[in-house]
């Protein structure tokens, strides 16, 4: 063989392999749904329970009902390790397999996927993460961010702080610290916190944690001890959260004043602090525990039949239920899309319509066995978030509890910011596709 022919055959081989990769996986009576997962890497501590919850709910729907109205959901995970490069690969993979919806599970991956999705016409479901500004449906017709954004979360934190202090006027002169991952995900709440700080006269202190230093926050906590903030909001993820809880205990920071974003509410995050972590708080959008018919069905149809990799006692943990919630949104959106189009097997375009008119009412939650699991959520043409309610969950030493009521974010503060930022994003992007998709009436 000459050099050229060797190279040629190698290249041909590579091309053939690539051709095989792209073989379409869609059967006639099923829809394909690609989900990014990270069961490896520094964020796997949070990624595994979520991935399990996502998968088990879909398996349960397939096992119990034979799919959504008889259409099986082919669920496939793509391992990213929370790495943007691999997430982009996973996006391309999902696109080549005609996924009906793309679920990035990382703010970085969402940011990279948003411009692509608007060209490829694939709806992105970034449930309570990703670009807050993408809640503006007029400019981002393909991105959905229910039930609320990081900006809503930041406003909820301020609201919670005010409630404990006894009113918004008591915020004056207080100090709120933000421990955050030094990445787009961690920086998201900063603009809202700064806005509110100006308005209510409190001070915001930033404590950024580099991804490499997630488990090494010692110096950061020295500055926290020096600054003595009244409250700490932890916008952390993965290995960063248990470390923050442990450090708070070690540094004698009152654990009840440490409030995590909903992603900092893993059972393992709080458990790491031992008995002293009792009282650690986290914003939450779903209830923890197994006492819901839907979760019982997962146990009965999936876990007990050995069709899941989840240990039985892990079912119902907070982040597991978060994954269940995300899959529930997907399944309900498929159902809605089927109703709208009259088709059984829906595609990405139908799915976008399904998501845009998604209206999960109290009655619907009861029907699917999730009464009290979350609050009703409805998405509209202009509002792709819904800004639903959350509550402040508290760790009682063994499990997450719900001591208070469901709280509504400060919508009036958040919405103008979303619109302004969406406009800014679209302007900067240059030649951003104008929304041509027609509005769907809420069903």
């Amino acid at each position, binding site marked *: 063989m000459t050099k050229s022919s060797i190279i040629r055959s190698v290249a041909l081989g590579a091309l053939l392999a690539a051709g095989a990769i792209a073989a379409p996986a869609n059967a006639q009576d099923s829809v394909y749904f690609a989900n990014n997962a990270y069961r*490896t890497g520094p964020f796997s501590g949070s990624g595994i329970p979520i991935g399990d919850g996502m998968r088990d709910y879909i398996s349960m729907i397939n096992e119990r009902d034979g799919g959504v109205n008889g259409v099986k959901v082919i669920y496939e995970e793509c391992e990213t390790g929370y790495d943007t490069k691999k997430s982009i690969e996973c996006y391309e993979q999902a696109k080549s397999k005609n996924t009906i919806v793309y679920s990035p599970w990382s703010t970085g991956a969402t940011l990279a996927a948003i411009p692509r999705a608007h060209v490829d016409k694939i709806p992105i479901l970034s449930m309570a993460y990703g670009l807050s500004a993408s809640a503006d449906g007029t400019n981002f017709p393909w991105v959905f961010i229910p039930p609320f954004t990081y900006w809503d979360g930041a406003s909820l934190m301020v609201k919670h702080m005010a409630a404990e202090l006894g009113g918004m006027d008591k915020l004056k002169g207080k100090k709120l610290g933000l421990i955050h991952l030094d990445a787009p995900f961690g920086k998201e709440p900063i603009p809202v916190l700064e806005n509110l700080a100006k308005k209510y006269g409190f001070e915001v202190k930033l404590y950024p944690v580099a991804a490499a230093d997630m488990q090494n926050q010692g110096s950061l906590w020295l500055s926290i001890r020096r600054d003595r903030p009244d409250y700490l909001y932890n916008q952390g993820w993965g290995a960063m959260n248990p470390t923050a809880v442990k450090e708070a205990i070690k540094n004698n920071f009152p654990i009840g004043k440490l409030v995590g974003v909903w992603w900092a509410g893993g059972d393992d995050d709080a458990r790491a602090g031992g008995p002293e972590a009792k009282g650690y708080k986290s914003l939450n959008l779903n209830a923890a525990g197994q006492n819901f018919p839907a979760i019982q069905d997962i146990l009965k149809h999936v876990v007990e039949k050995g069709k899941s990799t989840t240990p039985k006692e892990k079912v119902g943990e907070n982040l597991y239920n978060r994954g269940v919630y995300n899959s529930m949104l997907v399944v309900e959106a498929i159902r809605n899309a089927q109703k709208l189009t009259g088709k059984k097997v829906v595609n990405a375009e139908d799915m976008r319509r399904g998501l845009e008119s998604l209206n999960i009412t109290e009655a619907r939650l009861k029907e699917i066995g999730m009464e009290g699991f979350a609050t009703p959520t409805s998405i509209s043409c202009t509002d792709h978030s819904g800004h639903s309610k959350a509550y402040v969950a508290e760790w009682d030493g063994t499990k997450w509890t719900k001591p208070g009521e469901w709280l509504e974010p400060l919508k009036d503060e958040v919405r103008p910011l979303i619109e302004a930022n969406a406009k800014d994003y679209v302007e900067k992007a240059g030649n951003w596709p104008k929304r041509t998709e027609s509005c769907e009436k809420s069903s």
Partner: protein
Amino acid sequence: MFYREAGQYKTNYAADMAVFPLRQDRIGIAVILGIALVGVPLIGNDFFIASVMIPFLVFSLAAIGLNILTGYTGLISLGTAAFMGVGAYSCYKLTTYFPGVNIVVLILLSGLFSAAIGVLFGLPSLRIKGFYLAVATLAAQFFLQWAFVRVPWLFNYNASGAIEVPQRTLFGLPITGAAATPETRYFVCLGLVVVLTWFASNLVHGKLGRSWMAVRDMDIAAELMGIKLLNAKLTAFAVSSYFAGVAGAMMIFLWYGGGEANDVFTIRLSFNILFMVIIGGLGSLIGSFMGAAFIASLPTILKFGLPALGVPLSGAAAEHVTFMLVGALIIIFLIVEPHGLARLWQIGKQKLRTWPFPY
């Protein structure tokens, strides 16, 4: 037998000094370019082009950059990713200030900023070498990465601290931003890589390249021969960082298309590029390509190729298998051929030359 050069006479100095003196090599290069220009876009699907070929080209360029410094000049650097980052951020700033200027021009210009920063961090190389220099370049890695996160001016005060790549066109065709098809982005990458590889090849075969190699082989001897160490070392840093900077700008603008740029240019990427150079072959341009293919493309091909070929492998398991496989292959390669894939290729050529009668 396959590689017989009998009958290929050189009748002038130019032919004697050619980079590819053998006809077979010239045909080979033409065939590779033909495949790259026609075959890949024709046969490859979007996934293959966007997730295998574009990263391969970007990493090849970065590996050539590091190879100029480490392979040709003998200066070890662990700051490649940071220099790539300088390229990406300066390209972003340039396109913000000069939205009318063509992005390809800006990508090429952004390398100059990287080169300047590279020279700055290359200054210690005049006093220290080896591991000590590697640690000095680590400082560049840490400092620059810190700056990418901490200086909001660099990412235009974006709320999430990410670079959002705007749409830019070439001859009316979008080449950056979401509307750019993988094929267009691939052609732009290919064009840049081919031109810059040709440029690098001319450099390393010329006077400058020879002075770099003299410095690598023994700097005191080189100095005694009249080579100015200051010039040789700093030009190596400048050229190397230039290539890295262009690769970084290509990475964000033509491959990632936005996202968290500051999380990309990490020490891990620096190490990966160093592995590419070591596996590919120190002091070899073709080795840079081979190393990039091995370190950057193989994991992707394994991860998506194995399940496609019917090997049932879950995502996480595939990731672990890839780690083990690539790790094992690195060890095997380094034992079998410590001079890298390029040397293996050279041995192969030599064997083909005497086949079927080896001596």
